[in-house]
């Protein structure tokens, strides 16, 4: 299962501060969409608004429409928890639950929600999710060890396994490789390429090579100056963004002439 996301004139606010202004874009299903741009340009904020995670911060709100396969997720009657079960998220720093074993971490989406699942069902879910995250072979023999006993790259893949275990439609990744070494990064990038067979993947990255390697489409966000809202400057096929961008700002940024 994977779903398409349509944003229509989306503004994201923190209190009175307009953080992201007027984003309209279509994020394709079964594809990888990358957001690039300088720090503070609102790409992470926009991404967190895709599963209503930004609402965790006090005063954050959104205007405009955000459709998940045609359903507005910001309809007042929509429960943010429902949205988050459909749109999973992987964070910048790997954050396995320290009180849980590897196995429990993968099952966290079920266990924390109090779902009753049989032992064999749970085994299936754990194996499928860990295989899906390319981690099964490395942890097969030590599923009962704490999740924090893994290396940084393994922890990040454990977090991905935890996210895909609950079968979301969309997976959001907020700079998932920024704390990883090149080998772990490669492992995660390979994984992203596989994930798009089944899921809609959105990735925020500071690494332009990574965006070029893994994504089908790329959005470039920019900010006019401190205190100004971030905007989506250009959104197109990745090859177009990197080889033949329409906007001067995009060209400057992807060629490294920015700032």
């Amino acid at each position, binding site marked *: 299962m994977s779903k398409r996301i349509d944003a229509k004139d989306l503004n994201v606010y923190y209190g009175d501060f307009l953080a992201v202004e007027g984003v309209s874009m279509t994020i394709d299903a079964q594809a990888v969409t990358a957001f690039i741009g300088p720090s503070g340009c609102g790409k992470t904020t926009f991404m967190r608004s895709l*599963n209503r*995670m930004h609402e*965790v911060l*006090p005063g954050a709100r959104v205007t405009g429409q955000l459709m998940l396969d045609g359903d507005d997720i910001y309809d007042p009657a929509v429960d943010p*928890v*429902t949205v*988050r*079960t*459909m749109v*999973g*998220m992987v*964070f910048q*720093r790997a*954050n396995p*639950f*320290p*009180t849980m074993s590897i196995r429990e971490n993968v099952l*966290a*989406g079920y*266990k*924390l*929600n*109090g779902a009753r699942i049989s032992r064999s069902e749970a085994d299936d879910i754990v194996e499928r999710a860990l295989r899906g995250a390319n981690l099964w072979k490395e942890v097969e023999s030590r599923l009962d*060890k*704490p999740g*924090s*006993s*893994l*290396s940084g790259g393994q922890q990040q893949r454990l*977090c991905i396994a*935890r*996210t895909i275990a*609950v079968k979301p439609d969309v997976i959001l990744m907020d700079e998932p490789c920024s704390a990883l070494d090149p080998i772990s990064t490669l492992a995660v990038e390979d994984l992203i390429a596989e994930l798009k067979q089944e899921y809609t993947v959105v990735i925020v990255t500071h690494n332009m090579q990574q965006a070029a390697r893994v994504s089908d489409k790329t959005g470039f966000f920019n900010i006019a100056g401190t205190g100004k809202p971030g905007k989506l400057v250009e959104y197109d096929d990745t090859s177009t963004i990197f080889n033949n961008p329409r906007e001067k700002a995009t060209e400057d940024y992807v060629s490294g002439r920015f700032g």
Partner: protein
Amino acid sequence: MTNTTTPDAAESRAPEDDSLQTRGRTRSRLTQNAQPRWQWLVVLAVSAVLGSALSALIGFNVAGWLIFTAVLHVVITYVITLTRVNRRRATDQLWRNLIFIAFLIALLPLVSVIWSVVSVGVPGLLAPGFLSSDMQGITGTVDEASQTEGTAVLGGIRHAIIGSLVITVAATVISVPIGLLTSIYLVEYARGGLLSRAITFFVDVMTGIPSIVAGLFAGAAMAWFLGTLNAVTGLFGSMSSTMGITAAVALSVLMIPVVVRTTEEMLRVVPNELREASFALGVRKWRTILKVVIPTAVSGIASGVTLAVARVIGETAPILVTAGYVVNTNWNLFQGWITALPVYIYRQFVNPTSPAFSEPSHQRAWAAALVLIIIVMLLNLIARIIAKVFAPKTSGR
């Protein structure tokens, strides 16, 4: 280069360098500021001898001798280092010595309290039946016989231990849910509004409430409560407000702010990433708090609660005014007076069972004090063990 990066390194190398020299190798030219490692011992010995001489001049006593020794040691070390090495090193030594002396002074009361309680309390603790009997039937005549004829000191603290136990457990049962829920509200739900700031302020104020005030408050509140209840229902007329539960309420007034404060600290250090990770899995907020935040913080919460218990178990005044003092064992929190250990100690000292022959009472009081200290130490130990056992397994890589 490594020889001179720190004075300590230079100092500790000094003997080695001497031996190198005797083997005909030259000492590193970078070596400086070297003082023999045994210097402080010699200086201390000299100071002790001089100190005893000086204190003998004004009439020898141990305290004066120790003070003279300390002062002389500080001064001599400073002067020697100043003349033989340099000013910077001398200042370093001076402050090091002063800080060490301050540490010893801070340790003094602790050690002397433990020493005096243990040395005086052990005979009473070893008296037959001290832990297993209460004070029923122990009259002035019994104590008189103990003191004048040398018979065994009878009577014990069974009732006081049980009283302290039930009162403290009841206070914990009252305070922990209130304190825990308050701190959960403050950390997880309050967004810096007026209510949360007011709660924080009043919790701070509560921390400073004198314990006797808490006792008077609990006594008055319970009397009012029972009176109102009696007026409305016509029952409970015979119930007196002097009972164990009133003391538990008084102690919980003292405990709640401590529990709120420690739990709040512990919940705040739970990384936000874990909450977000849980939210991102579609877990509701209350489940996130219950299953992610609290388990991550539980070791700190448990040890904080144990320390709060250790703090209130030694309270005397609020229990004396709310639960009274009796000689027999009473397990019932809601009926009759209860003796707690600190109150027992107080009464045995101030109103000995036999006013003319107070030694047996004093012996029991000291032994009870020893038991109280042991209980508090055990609670501290338990807090540490809990913190260790429940701590999230963060490493193990």
